[in-house]
């Protein structure tokens, strides 16, 4: 349409360059950590700018894989992600379906009370006291229950289900289906895009969950991956005390190898599911 003219060509050239640059800038930290992770431990301590590795070694990975804590934390995170996502999806789907029925007496009031929790919260401390009172401290349930329903996800599901034609449900009702059967047989099959997106949002959030872990988990046996990673990676206080230099209690290559190992699940699913993430953004942009 407007690829003619010097001005337009110049604009496009600048545009492509700029977008290409920010894309590389996004990737670079990951690339750099990958390179550091396969550099020999002895070499990674010396200063040298490295865009490509000189010698490749997997000794850092061997060290990481030999750590018992890694596997127990991996186990906790996998359990929390799988069990937590299933539980979250069941509760969210049921609620979203019911709340998508505009004729339900009290439905609007309940929806308001749910959305209200996005605008106002009791705060960190009262929530902590509730979890403590329920005896969930240092159990995987502290990582699952307090985040069971994410209101944003509930809203996405609800608006999607509200768009399922009422006539289809009526037909099923005439055939003698109850509410639950209608949900399972009619509405769920038509809501697959929303289900895929929301499950993915839940799963990634649970895999990455750090805040609740910091609040409720101190016992190393129940450490999810993020707490293990913090212990591996973050030693700000020690770095600060030493005057800005990292004291290399653990070689930098080991740290970066642990990043690779813990990010692999997210990286692996990302290319295949990324269109569902985009779909989530689209669904979320749909105003109620």
């Amino acid at each position, binding site marked *: 349409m407007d690829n003619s003219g010097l001005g337009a060509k110049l604009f496009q050239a600048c545009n*492509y360059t700029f977008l290409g640059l920010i894309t590389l800038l996004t990737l670079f930290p990951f690339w750099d950590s990958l390179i550091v992770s396969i550099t020999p431990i002895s070499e990674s301590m010396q200063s040298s700018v490295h865009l490509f590795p000189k010698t490749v070694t997997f000794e850092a990975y061997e060290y990481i894989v030999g750590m018992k804590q890694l596997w127990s934390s991996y186990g906790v995170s996998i359990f929390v992600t799988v069990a937590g996502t299933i539980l979250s999806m069941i509760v969210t789907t049921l609620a979203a379906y019911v709340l998508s029925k505009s004729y339900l007496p009290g439905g609007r009031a309940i929806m308001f009370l749910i959305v209200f929790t996005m605008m106002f919260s009791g*705060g960190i401390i009262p929530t902590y006291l509730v979890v403590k009172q329920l005896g969930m401290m240092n159990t995987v349930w502290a990582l699952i229950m307090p985040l069971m329903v994410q209101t944003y996800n509930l809203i996405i599901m609800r608006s999607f289900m509200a768009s399922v034609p009422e006539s289809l449900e009526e037909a099923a009702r005439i055939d003698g289906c109850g509410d639950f059967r209608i949900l399972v047989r009619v509405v769920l099959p038509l809501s697959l895009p929303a289900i895929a997106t929301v499950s993915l949002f839940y799963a990634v959030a649970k895999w990455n969950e750090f805040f609740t872990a910091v609040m409720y988990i101190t016992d190393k046996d129940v450490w999810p991956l993020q707490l293990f990673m913090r212990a591996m990676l973050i030693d700000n206080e020690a*770095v600060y005390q030493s005057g*800005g230099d990292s004291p290399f209690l653990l070689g930098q290559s080991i740290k970066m190898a642990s990043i690779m190992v813990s990010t692999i699940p997210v990286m692996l699913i990302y290319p295949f599911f990324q269109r569902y993430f985009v779909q989530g953004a689209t669904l979320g942009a749909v105003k109620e």
Partner: protein
Amino acid sequence: MEAPTSRISAQVKSSRMEGIRRVLRYRNLYLMLLPAIAYYIIFHYYPMYGATIAFKQFSIIKGINGSPWVGLKHFETLLQLDKFWEVFWNTIVISLYRLLFGFPLPLIVALLLNEVRKMAFKRTVQTIIYLPHFISWVIMGGLLINLLSTDSGIVNQVIRSLGGSSIGFLSDESYFRSTLVGSMIWKEFGWNTIIYMAALAGVNPSLYEAAWMDGANRMQRIWHVTLPSIRTTIIILLILRIGGLMEAGFEQIFVLYHSGVYRVADIIDTYVYRTGLADGKFSLAAALGLFKSIINFVLLIIANQLARMKGDQGIF
């Protein structure tokens, strides 16, 4: 005189019966809603009630109900605390920086990306730039330390090789906030770009054709067609950002900060965490948390009203 009242009461009774009957008719639906309601009561509304410990002298043994009322004592203590003003100020400053520098960038990138005609390039850029959104702050912290540390970080190596001296991006008070804001933008701009792109995909192509027929140049097209089309999305995101002004990013700061930068980086949430959970001053910390929640709520209402006054739809 008797008859009309009894008739009315009979009507009231029958309408109440009608109400009960309607509820009974939908009992399966209510049953399906029950788990979610239980969740919201236990993990959201009960903590809201629990926030009353901000007005009590909370003790673990006596519990939320048994602890004695002390009125506004904790709020008075807070206002006299220098540390309170410090964390309040830090929260606002960091948030405003994020709003100022972080809000326009995704919009600009989305507009530029929208001008790209090569679909493969567009898709590649889109896919890569929002990847960091799905990586946790712990991992991001590790990556940042790897990049920015004064001795082996690649950024400082480049600075040194260009003849400069190392910069303590993560250790120096005067750089720490910039590092926070910069890394937050780096992690989140891609995702926000995608949200705008989703909105842009809905713009009617015939509007562009009409603008082209009228001889509009690129800037005029962006200004008169593209921007007005995604105005609602921009406003909604802005309202949400303003409503979250008291959220300066607990996870990020918690991962990156240390005692050397508390003066510039300690925010309300991190301070609540340390006061409440590390020092055990539950009531004082709850008072600060409640203070934050209330400000957030008020800001959200104000932003929403402003948007409505300007003729836009709010979020509620």
